[in-house]
């Protein structure tokens, strides 16, 4: 320790501590690392931030991927939404766009995500609940009615059925006479985190990875502006991981996708620039800011050093952020507005490219229009009033932020190395390694909350009577019946021979090594249902059973 700091510690800090001890025995990040009482220049010893973090728009992009960041354009304000029916969701999208939202984000219901039609008995109760039900192209036509696809960017949270929904979007664009190279958007298409944390897988890992890679290849040739994957740490974190584990497991999955694409024979610089990421923003403001910065630096290094990427774009970790659903409380629900604001600020200070802010009523239900408007306004206040968006990486150089950036990076790198030694992310997932790590963290967190080592305002401290939210969104139970009726009608009107031929062709292609995207497109053009397509592929690929880690 330097003399100046030593002097301060001895002459100022220690006497003060004798009179006023610290309010808790230790201070820790959610990732478990200790927090120093004071960060100084000394904590950055051996690190030259100009090199280790770089300048905005320059490798390794620690300070941001663009030279101007939000001085050029604010992040895309993108509220994840969809419920009840395509018609109702279309109304919500047009409302959000009218309120100043700048991108769409489609939430699909669980049957659509897992490849069951609305009339499948397994879909009972789930139709239109957590998102919009899409059975055929017809529903997509209704969903995007009066929304020109060349004027919006659309993100779709869809994974095992991603090629089908992407195919529908492509066919829809063709019907709107929009050139495919004008389409702007993202499909999540990240199957690995489904096995780890989110649970909407259908097929086993190998054929799933093949479908993912088919999308990379197809979009590389036909949809140059499309983000072919959103490699997601969000669900890993929400399932209970720490910030360090979120970075590590996400980037380890990212490495697996890059390897799969290289094995296909793709050139790294032809696809890596279209990979995007998705992270969580939780309450610990500075840990989260440091996490985003660390993730950017790590990914840039991985792409350059391990995969020999030459194009700077291949090394840029571009990411979407969502505030933390798990942090929302049913108790004193309006406190959630403040939590969301802190989390959103972390995302902005961390340099996110797009942001979803959660609504205060989400511990009760999917958000009401009133609640989602407040959430969107939160982003607008940060963007237009707080000043946080007016300089690039404004926390850069802050001793604590720079020190945490390096600490998180080092700790995440250790996990990534360990996963590499296990044979990569797919092998590690098959062994249940990340699943187990996440469960341990989530259980430890719960214990800490119950022991009041971690405080949640309104839940384990400052508990007070509260009024629960009455005006919640309820999906009309009739929505399920109406969707089933609509599906029946589409089935009656379509050409059954075309459907059968398209499915037969898909099965043939799936058994070959050909790219499956054109076969998916042919299926959706014929109004083949999501369930029919997935059933055909279940027959070819088999189904994945849950590997229970408990």
């Amino acid at each position: 320790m330097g003399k100046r700091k030593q002097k301060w510690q001895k002459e100022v800090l220690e006497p003060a501590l004798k009179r006023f001890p610290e309010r808790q025995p230790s201070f820790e990040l959610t990732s478990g690392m200790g927090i120093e009482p004071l960060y100084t220049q000394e904590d950055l010893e051996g690190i030259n931030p100009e090199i280790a973090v770089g300048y905005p728009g320059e490798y390794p992009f620690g300070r941001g991927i663009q030279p101007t960041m939000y001085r050029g354009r604010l992040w895309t304000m993108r509220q994840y939404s969809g419920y009840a029916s395509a018609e109702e969701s279309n109304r919500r999208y047009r409302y959000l766009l009218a309120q100043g939202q700048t991108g769409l984000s489609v939430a699909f219901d669980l049957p659509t995500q897992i490849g069951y039609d609305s009339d499948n008995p397994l879909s009972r109760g789930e139709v239109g609940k957590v998102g919009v039900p899409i059975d055929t192209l017809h529903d997509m036509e209704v969903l995007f009615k009066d929304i020109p696809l060349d004027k919006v960017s659309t993100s779709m949270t869809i994974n095992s059925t991603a090629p089908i929904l992407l195919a529908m979007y492509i066919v829809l664009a063709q019907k709107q006479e929009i050139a495919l190279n004008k389409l702007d958007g993202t499909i999540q298409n990240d199957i690995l985190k489904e096995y780890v944390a989110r649970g909407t897988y259908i097929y086993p890992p190998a054929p799933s990875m093949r479908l993912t890679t088919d999308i990379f290849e197809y979009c590389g040739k036909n949809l140059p502006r499309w983000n072919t994957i959103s490699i997601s740490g969000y669900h890993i974190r929400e399932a209970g991981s720490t910030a360090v584990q979120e970075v590590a497991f996400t980037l380890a999955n990212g490495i697996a996708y890059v390897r799969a694409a290289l094995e296909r024979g793709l050139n790294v610089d032809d696809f890596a620039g279209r990979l995007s990421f998705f992270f969580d923003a939780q309450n610990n403001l500075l840990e989260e800011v440091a996490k985003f910065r660390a993730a950017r630096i790590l990914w840039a290094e991985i792409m350059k050093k391990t995969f020999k990427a030459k194009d700077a774009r291949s090394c840029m970790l571009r990411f979407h952020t969502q505030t933390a659903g798990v942090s929302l409380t049913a108790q004193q629900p309006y406190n959630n507005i403040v939590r969301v604001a802190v989390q959103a600020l972390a995302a902005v200070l961390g340099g996110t490219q797009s942001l979803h802010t959660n609504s205060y009523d989400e511990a009760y239900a999917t958000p009401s229009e009133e609640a989602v408007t407040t959430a969107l306004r939160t982003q607008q206040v940060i963007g237009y009033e707080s000043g946080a968006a007016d300089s690039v990486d404004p926390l850069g150089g802050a001793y604590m932020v720079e020190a945490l950036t390096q600490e998180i990076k080092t700790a995440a790198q250790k996990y990534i190395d360990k996963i590499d030694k296990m044979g990569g992310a797919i092998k590690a997932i098959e062994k249940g390694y990340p699943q187990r790590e996440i469960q341990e963290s989530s259980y430890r967190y719960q214990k800490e909350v119950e022991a009041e080592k971690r405080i949640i305002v309104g839940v384990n401290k400052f508990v007070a009577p509260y009024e629960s939210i009455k005006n919640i969104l309820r999906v009309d139970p009739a929505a399920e019946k109406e969707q089933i009726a609509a599906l029946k009608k589409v089935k009656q009107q379509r050409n059954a021979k075309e459907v059968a031929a398209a499915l037969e062709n898909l099965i043939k292609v799936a058994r070959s090594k050909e790219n499956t995207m054109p076969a998916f497109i042919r299926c959706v053009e014929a109004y083949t249902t999501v369930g029919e397509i997935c059933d055909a592929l279940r027959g070819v690929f088999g189904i994945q059973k849950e590997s229970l880690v408990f």
Partner: protein
Amino acid sequence: MSKDNIRVLIAKPGLDGHDRGAKVVARALRDAGMEVIYTGIRQTPEMIVQAALQEDVDVVGLSCLSGAHLELFADVMKGLKGKKMTDVVVVAGGILPEDDIAALKKIGIKATFGPGTKTSDIVKVISKLATD
């Protein structure tokens, strides 16, 4: 007096993959000395009833965060009744809007646990219900 070896089935009906809560609760019950069987995700009501029967459990804990609880929990209750397993205590957790709780109680669900519930409280309630 608490009963020894309370057997609990923690189950995830429907298509919902949010299993963090179910797993935390399962583990907390196990740490409290109960015998816990966890079904995993994506169980049909029939599968849950079958598992409850085979494992001869005293308690079934249902978890659902997707909003499909009214339909799915009712199907489980019907299934249990069909197998004459009306002595099995059923409790539930997840994103359960307040307005629905009366409806869930009406179909025979003995207790519901919303977001923010302490696992120690869940242990207490289940121990009591299982021994009453």
